[in-house]
């Protein structure tokens, strides 16, 4: 019997593949790696590319991933696929945007952000009107 290794390919959105395979090929940053069962523990990042899973000598399945992480334990291989292109400067830009968003929020005094406050005031006013109406009725 040939040796197999358990392979899991997952992304944040879904489970892509889970099962046994004889060999897995993945596009690591340092070049493509081929993983056989009982590979030494390895942790690496993946480039966008194709992950090929050889289930037996005749069947091979391939999945395209846009980067991610690869973890290898002697009997399991885990591919954590990204759902988006990642790059340092892209992440940086996204972080900057989030910061700006927060600053805009704090700077913006008259917008729908104050809606909650207005709503609270409205409820208070309505309660007052109701109380006044009740008083009027009693006087009548």
């Amino acid at each position, binding site marked *: 019997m040939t040796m197999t290794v358990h392979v899991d390919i997952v992304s944040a959105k879904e489970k892509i593949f889970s099962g046994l395979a004889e060999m897995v090929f993945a596009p690591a940053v340092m070049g493509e790696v081929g993983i056989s069962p009982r590979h030494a*523990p390895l*942790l690496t990042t993946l480039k966008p590319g194709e992950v090929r899973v050889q289930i037996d000598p005749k069947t091979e399945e391939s999945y395209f991933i846009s980067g991610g992480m690869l973890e290898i334990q002697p009997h399991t291989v885990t591919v954590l696929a990204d759902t988006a292109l990642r790059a340092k400067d892209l992440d940086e830009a996204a972080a900057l945007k989030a910061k700006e968003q927060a600053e805009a*929020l*704090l700077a913006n005094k008259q917008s729908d952000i104050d809606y909650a406050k207005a709503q609270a005031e409205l409820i208070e006013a309505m309660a007052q009107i109701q109380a006044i109406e009740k008083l009027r009725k009693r006087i009548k």
Partner: protein
Amino acid sequence: MASGKEIRGKISSVKNTQKITRAMEMVAASKMRKAQVQMEESRPYAEKIQKVIGHLANAHPEYQHLYMQSREVKRIGLVVVSSDRGLCGGLNTNLFKFSLNQMKQWDKDELDVSLCTIGSKGSAFFKRVGAKIISQPESLSDTPNIEALIGSVKVMLDAFTNGEIDQLVLVYNKFVNTMTQQPTLEQLLPLKAEENEDLSHHWDYIYEPDAEDVLDSLLARYIESRVYQGVVENIACEQSARMVAMKSASDNAGDLIDELQLAYNKARQAAITQELSEIVAGAAAV
């Protein structure tokens, strides 16, 4: 007593409100199912990455990543996940109360708190109470992408790296079932290692290209996935809370309509009786 016409107007306005609440209830019910599926789908990734982190904690790395070192806590980063829209019962209010209590506790211990608010209800609330918001993603839809969170999470991670915060905490509503949502607090950073006896023999990974780079991207993804999981769960909570709130609103509207109908009938009958007695009295006079 109010006249018949007045009551009729009120009845029709309550009926209109009931139509709206009933429609919202149904929309929320179908969205809740979708949100639950979304929650299930993102679970395998969270579990796998958790497992990898577990392995990592039990390995004996030559390089200790900053995220794994705990230091004296003086400043705290808090990620609050709330909904974008209201009309979902006490869901957000409970969460904010829970976070405020926690923040008061931290305040007592003289800890400084910086916030990352996800969801516009949270931004509005914490802005009003004057909290320090340092990061906020653009508004998320009902089907958020993990990409939308990358930026705002990175701000918090950078703050941790630069020593602006010493601990990162996540607050969100945990989905227990349709009726129950539990405000929950989880520590994201520093990572708490769970010791596992079977694995703790002496070994380490081979890192390609090097430990620092690999761990950087792995841990960033891990934190993002935890936050994403929180967001997805919060959406499921929001929809189910809205469904329940709208259901009780529709029921209340129904009760109100019944009462008004009764009052209307009484008023109508009184008017008829009065008219009759007037006619009879008129006839007798002639």
